[in-house]
């Protein structure tokens, strides 16, 4: 483990990604301290609406005259909460299903995997939109929509990894020794496939944040005045290209988080999953 961290620390790209993530996480945690107009999440000052970046409103103001910089900081909280909780739920659903389906053979595991295929057959964003639309706009529903659409990725991954891991001699030996299936799955198989789960989860964070922003953009995210980034960009459309800062800074924020997770995910994959690294080098 220490070795893995050291290797990761040597990789500049993933360290840069980690730095980006840390910046956003800190921004989210310290939002009330860092923001210049913490009240502007809900308050508006129509007198200064759509003012360009200036010493008082660092990143300009939106159509209500609220400070975009402050709203972005609070928006980071929403984005990260949605992404982390949604992914956590998706992992908690997908990993056990993949483990069980991969460990056992037969009708039951086929059914589980065909079930996850159904979710994969529909484009993720369409399914997420349909669910979010049906349930109504709120943070909880976005989380629900995202986790329902994303769990099959983990189920698939864990299924395939479990299948191949089960053929390893040490797993067979553990079974022959008389270990219970639960023990074999949780103590032997899960630790040896954990690295691919970690990699998939890190890279998945980026995608989930994008999808969450898209839902917000389409008006399916948390309702106003929540400073959700996707929604802010959607609002800005009417004032483009004049009020460029209105769309540019939330867009930049989304770009930074997604970029951060993708860079870190790539770095982790290189360190944890040598097979994939070789494939990408040959490219």
């Amino acid at each position, binding site marked *: 483990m220490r070795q893995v961290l050291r290797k990761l620390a040597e990789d500049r790209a993933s360290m840069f990604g980690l730095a980006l993530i840390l910046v956003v996480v800190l921004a989210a945690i310290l939002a009330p301290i860092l923001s210049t107009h913490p009240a502007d999440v809900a308050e508006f000052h129509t007198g200064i609406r759509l003012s360009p970046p200036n010493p008082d409103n660092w990143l300009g103001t939106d159509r209500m005259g609220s400070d975009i910089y402050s709203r972005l900081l609070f928006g980071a909280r929403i984005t990260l909460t949605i992404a982390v909780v949604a992914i956590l739920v998706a992992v908690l659903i997908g990993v056990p299903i993949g483990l069980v389906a991969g460990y056992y053979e037969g009708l039951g595991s086929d059914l589980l995997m065909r079930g996850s295929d159904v979710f994969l057959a529909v484009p993720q964003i369409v399914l997420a939109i349909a669910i979010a639309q049906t349930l109504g706009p709120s943070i909880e529903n976005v989380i629900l929509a995202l986790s329902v659409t994303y769990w099959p990725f983990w189920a698939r991954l864990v299924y395939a990894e479990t299948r191949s891991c089960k053929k*390893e*001699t*040490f797993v*067979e*030996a*553990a*079974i*022959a*020794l*008389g*270990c*219970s*299936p639960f*023990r074999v799955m949780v103590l*032997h198989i899960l*630790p*040896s496939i954990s690295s691919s789960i970690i990699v998939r989860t890190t890279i998945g964070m980026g995608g989930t944040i994008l999808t969450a922003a898209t839902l917000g953009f389409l008006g399916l995210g948390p309702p106003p005045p929540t400073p959700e980034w996707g929604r802010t960009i959607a609002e800005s459309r009417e004032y483009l290209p004049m009020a460029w800062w209105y769309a540019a800074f939330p867009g930049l924020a989304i770009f930074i988080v997604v970029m951060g997770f993708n860079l870190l995910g790539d770095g982790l994959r290189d360190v944890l999953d040598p097979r994939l690294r070789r494939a990408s080098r040959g490219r």
Partner: protein
Amino acid sequence: MSAAPILEVRDLRKYFPVRNLWKRRIGWLRALDDVSFTVQPGEILGIVGESGCGKSTLGKTLMGIHTATAGEVMFQGQDIARLRPHESRGLRQHLQYCYQDPGASLDPRWTIRASLHEPLIVHTALKEPEREARVREILAAVGLPETHLDLYPHEISGGQQRRVGLARILTLKPSVVILDEPTSGLDVSVQAVILKLFLSLQEQFGLTYLFVSHDLSVVRMICDRVAVMYLGRVVEIGETSRIFATPRHPYTQSLLAAIPRIGGARVTDTFSLEGEPPSPTNLPSGCRFRTRCPRAQALCAQQDPALRADWPGQAAACHFAE
């Protein structure tokens, strides 16, 4: 045969389905076909044969890693061939399987200590200090220093991994251990050390071994009895000295002729078998050895010979063995 056998195998069959592209079954691979033998407590029964003759399948079927297609395996008065995995778990304590490569049977992410504790956690209710004591006792028995407990499998040598693999099995104090090719891939000097270890452990723990190997010289050295397998069937079984002195089955005869000897004739000159064994998915009629047998006659194509115990301490499945 004396006393009650500790392990009795009756007409054990293991067929693997052969499927085509559409997963339709198009035939059976007969890995084990009516295998019968008994094992006496305290003896070492060697199981020899070419690659692919079903030696490993036999071991794994006895262990319940594969479920038997038909037949009985009587162990401690109970038929274990039919048991589902969770039902046989208790019996596993007494019947253990040692992998061809015991190093690979250790979880690479676990320390040696964790791997050695595991069987005890699974099968006993011992407390941690008691387990640790047992682990240290076994570790000493297989000749490893206690300092190795905190190492990972990749940090020790192949021979030491084997010892750990063996120790892991012995922590449960089993009565029968199936050794699958325990000496393959080892230096001759390490082989000798490992074999000595097997013998001393047998004495110390009163073990019965099923010794699966293709190395005839090793089998001759340590086994009390030998079963020779050919294409999923036992073709000859008997006391080691008798089999090696007077092999009855033509297959055994050609196998023994193939043992290289210093100063002896070249193996290629004396080896009487020609060609490859037929595919176990498509066996010849009658005796399955007849396609390569120097003594095959018309009868062999019609009738499958059964094991005949016509000699003292020896039985062979051949119409014309004398």
